[in-house]
């Protein structure tokens, strides 16, 4: 176990590398998800408030 965590004396470089990668990737994932949730819920709320728009949109599509 010490072999893996210790990384042959290079733990101070290897683990931060993986750590930074994880932080950036998770950060991207979380911000993207949050943004999407926010926008989609806002859109749903707006559609709720303006149900007529939906009808009009469908009519416009035909």
């Amino acid at each position: 176990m010490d072999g893996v965590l210790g990384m042959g004396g290079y733990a101070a470089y290897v683990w931060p590398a993986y750590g930074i990668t994880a932080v950036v990737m998770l950060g991207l994932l979380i911000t993207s998800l949050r943004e999407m949730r926010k926008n989609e819920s806002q859109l749903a709320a707006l559609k709720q408030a303006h149900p007529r728009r939906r009808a009009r949109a469908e009519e416009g599509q035909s």
Partner: protein
Amino acid sequence: MHRFANPARFLRAAQLVLPWSAGLTVALLAAGLYLGLLGSPADYQQGETVRIMYVHVPSAWMGLFVYSNMAIASAVALIWKHPLADVVAKASAPVGAGFTFVCLVTGALWGKPMWGTWWAWDARLTSMLILLFLYLGHMALVNAFDDPTRGAKAGAVLALAGFVNVPIIKYSVDWWNTLHQPASVTRVGMPAVDPAMLTPLLLMGLAFTTFFVTLLILRVRSELAATKIRAIRMVQVHGG
């Protein structure tokens, strides 16, 4: 409305792809990390630090790949005026910037034990830094206009102009004699890497790619929703 290829179709397709890409990302990451951290030997020269490779190299590939992806999307947007292409380009930029950043930081962390310095001004390192600036410039430009479509179009021209940099980064190591290693995996013909290291490397590369696809879907969905919100707002202002 032929120009406005139906985003609804995209959303349906994305809905199908999303669980697969997300699931694959998790599975590939698990396998890649296991092999990379436990199941592969240390390098006879570089020792355990070689394990940094499994995040450093895939993120470098992704940095270049995402930019190429953006340039293609931009060309599509400019030539065929496909609105989804603009959205894809815009949604890709922050992800590409993220990967490029990871490549730089992990490279620096690798450089300290290997070369004895965090940073050196050699061709590949600096051209990667420039790539990061190209991403940042693209993000800034796209958001610098009051009218989002204007920003998208300007961004498309910039992405194409900046694409010149990608081959320079890719081949800088071959053209100039530098500290950094030349390509050994992606070189034409047989890769010059031990399969025990090649397997986790390729697994991580695939994992990063599916991760990118997942993020792209989320971000495009978000962007499309934002467009629609703006549209509804606009109707409120001007009375649809």
